[in-house]
């Protein structure tokens, strides 16, 4: 349960984070070295420099408290964080006391956590939520940790709050795409669809073979947002997505209604009873061949049996409108912040600066059972499976990268209105007009 919740977060993009910057964001980050193994950056060669790998003013290392949004033993995500903490403790010769909290709990108590006695460095997400904490003075300005070797300007931009300072260090990201089992596709003679027609034909064929085309889960309210996002970006484009999430476009506009309308026509190809299903259960039904495909983040691998994991492959959702194309996708960034309440800022900065390095990413990936896709372009890709390599490639080729509906949008709107409204739509797909009107009314009240 821990992993999925990371999608439940709401990160919205700082106002200054312009579309152009976002576009170049991960493409630039990955361009150089993400796909190549860079032996020089391996942990062993990190050597004896005791200071952080970041450029700028390297703060003196010291004992730090590290807040992790993964519970002990909750899987690869926890292993990676713990590995980074251990590696730093060993390298800098300081004590890193880890505070491992269940993912949901961590997120739900984040506001009180930050205003109470937070850990010095804690896991968080890029974008609006980071910016909001920065604006409210609960996370510390860490501009002097930047630039960090291997993190591109685009990543720096993603770590910058509207005041122009950096408050965040990215460590990894993951794209949302349509996953499927290679062996199942091969057996049935199916191929990755590259156009709407091909997708339609594929879905028809799957139904003919008594396979539900799309696995689908909406018990966790964030999960169906992935579908909304991709349809919105395919039908209205990335710019519209950004304008909508910033409140510059209306939720009852014809464009948004068109998204729901299209979704409605696709619903018969989705698993029924989605509102009672967790994404893990949906992933299982793809793994056991009840469903052909599943649109989810790469964390879908955590939901399928180990023997099926190597059989997974994915493609990006095909274009629905030729003039819009299919070069936009969701790829949320995870990373770290320093709490403003820390009385240990020097040590915290030393630690967070190191967390952004390739050395940290390698420490995480070399000791966890499943790797993340490192934000640092110097990080080793040795631990990457085919899935991670392809993910990095896909993100690199994407022209525009969004975070996620609930990360790009005002948190209040996303968590109290859009979640419930999308579930409402799944219950009553015919009520598109009243649902979109209701979202817009509430959006006006919340953002107003």
């Amino acid at each position: 349960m821990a992993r999925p919740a990371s999608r439940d977060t709401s990160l919205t993009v700082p106002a200054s984070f312009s579309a152009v910057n976002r576009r170049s964001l991960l493409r630039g980050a990955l361009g150089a070295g993400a796909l190549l193994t860079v032996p020089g950056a391996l942990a062993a060669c990190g050597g004896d420099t005791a200071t952080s790998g970041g450029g700028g003013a390297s703060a003196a290392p010291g004992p730090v408290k590290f807040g992790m949004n993964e519970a002990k033993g909750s899987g690869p995500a926890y292993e990676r964080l713990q590995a980074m903490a251990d590696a730093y403790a060993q390298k800098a010769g300081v004590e890193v006391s880890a505070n491992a909290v269940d993912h949901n709990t961590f997120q739900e108590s984040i506001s009180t956590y930050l205003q109470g006695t937070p850990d010095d460095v804690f896991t968080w997400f890029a974008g609006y939520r980071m910016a909001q904490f920065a604006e409210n003075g609960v996370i510390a300005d860490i501009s002097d940790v930047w630039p960090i070797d291997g993190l591109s300007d685009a990543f720096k931009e993603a770590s910058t709050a509207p005041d122009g300072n950096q408050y965040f260090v990215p460590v990894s990201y993951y794209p949302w795409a349509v996953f499927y089992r290679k062996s199942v596709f091969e057996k049935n003679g199916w191929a990755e669809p590259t156009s709407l027609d091909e997708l339609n034909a594929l879905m028809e064929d799957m139904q003919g073979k008594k396979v539900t085309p799309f696995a689908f889960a909406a018990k966790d309210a964030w999960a169906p947002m992935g579908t909304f996002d991709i349809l919105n970006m395919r039908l209205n484009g990335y710019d519209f997505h950004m304008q909508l999430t910033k409140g510059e476009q209306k939720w009852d506009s014809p464009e948004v209604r068109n998204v729901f309308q299209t979704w409605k026509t696709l619903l018969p190809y989705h698993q029924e009873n989605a509102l009672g299903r967790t994404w893990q259960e949906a992933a299982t039904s793809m793994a056991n061949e009840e469903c052909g495909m599943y649109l989810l983040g790469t964390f879908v691998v955590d939901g399928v049996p180990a023997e099926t994991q190597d059989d997974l492959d994915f493609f990006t959702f095909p274009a629905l409108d030729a003039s819009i194309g299919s070069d936009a996708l969701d790829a949320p960034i995870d990373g770290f912040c320093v709490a403003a309440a820390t009385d240990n800022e020097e040590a915290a900065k030393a630690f967070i600066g190191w967390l952004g390095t390739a050395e940290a990413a390698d420490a995480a990936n070399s000791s966890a059972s499943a790797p993340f896709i490192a934000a640092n372009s110097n990080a080793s890709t040795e631990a990457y499976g085919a899935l991670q390599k392809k993910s990095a490639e896909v993100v690199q080729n994407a022209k525009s990268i969004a975070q996620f509906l609930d990360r790009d949008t005002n948190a209040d709107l996303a968590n109290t209105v859009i979640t419930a409204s999308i579930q409402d739509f799944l219950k009553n797909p015919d009520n598109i007009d009243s649902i979109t009107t209701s979202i817009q009314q509430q959006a006006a009240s919340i953002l107003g």
Partner: protein
Amino acid sequence: MTTATPTQDAPRVKKRRGAARVEKRRGTRDRLVIGAMVGIPTVLVVWLVWLPALASVALSFARWNGFKLSSLEWVGTQNYTDITTIYPPFWPAIQHNLIWLVFLFVLPTTLGILLAVILDREMWGSRFYQTAFYLPVVLSMALVGFIWQLFYSTDQGLINEVFGSNVDWYGDPDINLWAVLVATAWRHTGYIMLIYLAGLKGVDASLREAASVDGASEVKTFFHVIFPVMRPINLIVLVIVVIESLRAFDIVWIINKGRNGLELISALVSQNVIGEATRYGFGSALAVIMMVISSVFITIYLRIVFREERR
């Protein structure tokens, strides 16, 4: 509140002059003790209950993200108008809370009382049944929700597996409230049973004997003799049921955060103030509405209790 002591003493002083001196000598110390015993809880109650409650009322007229006080913005009754007009989950939540209340009364409470009456007859194995029925009560509601998830899961759940059905127990908004109520009843029945059983053990056996000597049937004895004698316990049960149904929260939160057919006022409050969303003003307004509804029941209860005491 300390002033109550001397006025109460006054009549007694007149009656028993000898004892008065003793009472007076102890007076100062007693007064201090009583003052501390009354004062400390009062301070705690005011500090931990009344001030936060009043702060919630004040916040319900504002828009605030919970960080800096400077970002607090007074918006008048906008939160309340929004809640009642453009906030879709609100009216379903009120409705669900009422259904919850009625259901708890009709099924688990009567069932619990029935079980208590049966178990009170000291039949063979009653200890075992008592424990079995009470066992769910020691589990937290969150755990109850999780346990029942194993029964209710659409694809992997026991019920659908055994009956070959394909019902989306937790997901279908027409069904999930009832599915959750059954899970709640599973726990609530044992709770009521134990309380009632304890009450029944305290009923004077001679009442039963007298009733049976008079030739009253078992059922008549219960309704005309035992039940009226149990009045204090009945009141406690009544209050427990009302409180349980108003504070119902954890089970729907663990299932789907109180959305999609499982809206409850308490869950809506949490959705707005806990976690990612920080609509403190809006959430407070919901909490105030919940407080008002609760106080209606509390007032009724207190009136009954006070009337009882006056007798």
